[in-house]
């Protein structure tokens, strides 16, 4: 079943179109940077962007930081929101369940497919970022500099980049869990996607609001950008571990709710 879901996901033109669009933005930013030579000052704009003119090897991280706040969550919400509701809207859900495919199995397969999409997307964005960084900018293949200014060996840098990719993927899993839950609640994929995005927008908005500071540590988007801390010297694990724990909590609760709803629901689509 998991293989079937992966086949469906990656045989869909939409999946690849989404990934292509996701990569267009970092490319555009790179071209603009190159043409104008106007990098944001350190500490402003997306993280890492100020450093890439000096060292293109950081561009994969800059690319992730560019798509992370908006583009990546939208893509994940679209794909995860479509997972059950899309089948319901197309009417194929009833045929799958009558085939029969166990409801739990279907949900797990959908989750794995979404996870695969997240991983592929993040890796492709990082990969394209690497290509852009090493062709358009001066890359220093022998290591780089940390955000704190100290030098990093290239092995260190690639190790930390892998960790960052993993962290971003986990953050996106939280988005996927929201969208998947909404996807079992409605027969409209658009509704499920919008629901998940509404949660994220609300969370980002509350994060900027002082009055919301008591709940700020529990907002799903709170620790998203903590992957930057992986590139400090020494690595600051505090926000990263909190981010992982928080996402784990959200994913666990939301998936349990999605499961409880989906396995007891009347399929009338």
């Amino acid at each position, binding site marked *: *079943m998991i*293989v*079937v879901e992966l*086949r*469906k996901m990656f*045989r*869909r*033109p939409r999946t690849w179109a989404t990934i292509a669009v996701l990569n267009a933005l970092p490319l555009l930013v790179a071209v603009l940077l190159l043409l104008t030579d106007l990098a944001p000052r350190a500490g402003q704009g997306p993280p890492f962007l100020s450093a890439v003119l000096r060292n293109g090897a950081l561009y994969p991280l800059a690319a992730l930081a560019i798509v992370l706040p908006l583009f990546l969550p939208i893509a994940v919400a679209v794909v995860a929101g479509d997972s059950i509701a899309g089948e319901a809207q*197309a*009417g*194929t859900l*009833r*045929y*799958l*369940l*009558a*085939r*029969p*495919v*166990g409801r739990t199995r279907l949900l797990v397969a959908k989750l794995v497919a979404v996870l695969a999409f997240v991983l592929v997307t993040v890796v492709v964005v990082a990969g394209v970022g690497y290509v852009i960084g090493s062709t358009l900018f001066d890359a220093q293949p022998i290591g780089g500099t940390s955000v704190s200014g100290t030098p990093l060996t290239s092995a260190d840098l690639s190790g930390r980049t892998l960790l960052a990719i993993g962290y971003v993927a986990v953050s996106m899993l939280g988005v996927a869990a929201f969208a998947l839950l909404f996807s079992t609640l409605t027969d409209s994929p658009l509704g499920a996607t919008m629901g998940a995005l509404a949660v994220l927008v609300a969370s980002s908005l509350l994060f900027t609001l002082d009055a919301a500071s008591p709940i700020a540590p529990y907002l799903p988007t709170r620790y998203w950008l903590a992957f930057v801390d992986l590139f400090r010297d020494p690595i600051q694990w505090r926000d990263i571990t909190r981010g992982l724990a928080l996402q784990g909590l959200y994913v666990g609760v939301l998936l349990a709710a999605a499961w409880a709803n989906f396995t*007891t629901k*009347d*399929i*009338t689509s």
Partner: protein
Amino acid sequence: MSAVITTSGLVKQYGRLRAVDGIDLDVQAGDVYGFLGANGSGKTTTVRMLLGLVLPTSGEIELLGERMPRAGRRVLPRVGALIEGPAHYGHLSGRENLSLLDAAGRGGSWRTRRRRVDHALDQVGLGGIGRRPVKAYSLGMQQRLGLAGALLRRPELLVLDEPTNGLDPQGISEVRELLLELHRGGTTVFLSSHLLAEVEQLCSRVVVLDRGRLVLQEELATLTAPTGCTVVHTPTPERVRGTLDGRVTSVDGERVIVRGSDPAEVNALLVGAGIPVSGLALERPTLEEVVLAAAGTSPDRVEARP
């Protein structure tokens, strides 16, 4: 004979509406079972409950001898279904759709998958279908593809909810031939349909639903058994009344109903009296008459309360 579908006291409540209200079905192996009822009488809801898609509010279902929905994993692979029209992934070809559906569930090696898919496509007359995506199929082709999906696992029981919807007369007759052939091969068919002529030609047993209640469950042969009257067509109905006084039960234009279950005897009397007879037949109720008599108005008529 063994029971293929039995339900007892099956109820589905949607809010305040009882879509299905205490249905007791009894489908035996080898039946072609006609499931009739007006729009909104609860046919699709019942079919969904049989397949474990909708959970009954109360009542019990046994499918192929096992309790549903609990035994769905064991029972449903032996059942082929078409539920309220076909549904496919529009951007994939018909063959890929079937192959995905086949791979989605247990059973059947992937080595023989191609053969299964080809066989099912041949059965519904789509054997030569190319790589066109399903969204470019006509309605009839989609319906055929849906049917192919139901036949994919060579099921013992076919549950078909309006399988001939959207098909042209040729298509309908092809599907009828196909179902009869499968039936000869031992498949039990549970067919919900609005096309009474269709059901009349196919089914051995019919049930009629009215607003979620079962109002009739009977052998078709019994329902349409001769009434004991003879229908006479004649240009001079008044003279028939004169000759067979007392035996004429009704006159409708040139159509006269005469009591008596032997047309030859009636004919002899009329010819003896020199009355021209242009047509003569045993009177049988049509399925349409039976169904209309059993069920009230369509529950989809929502009339304003005074």
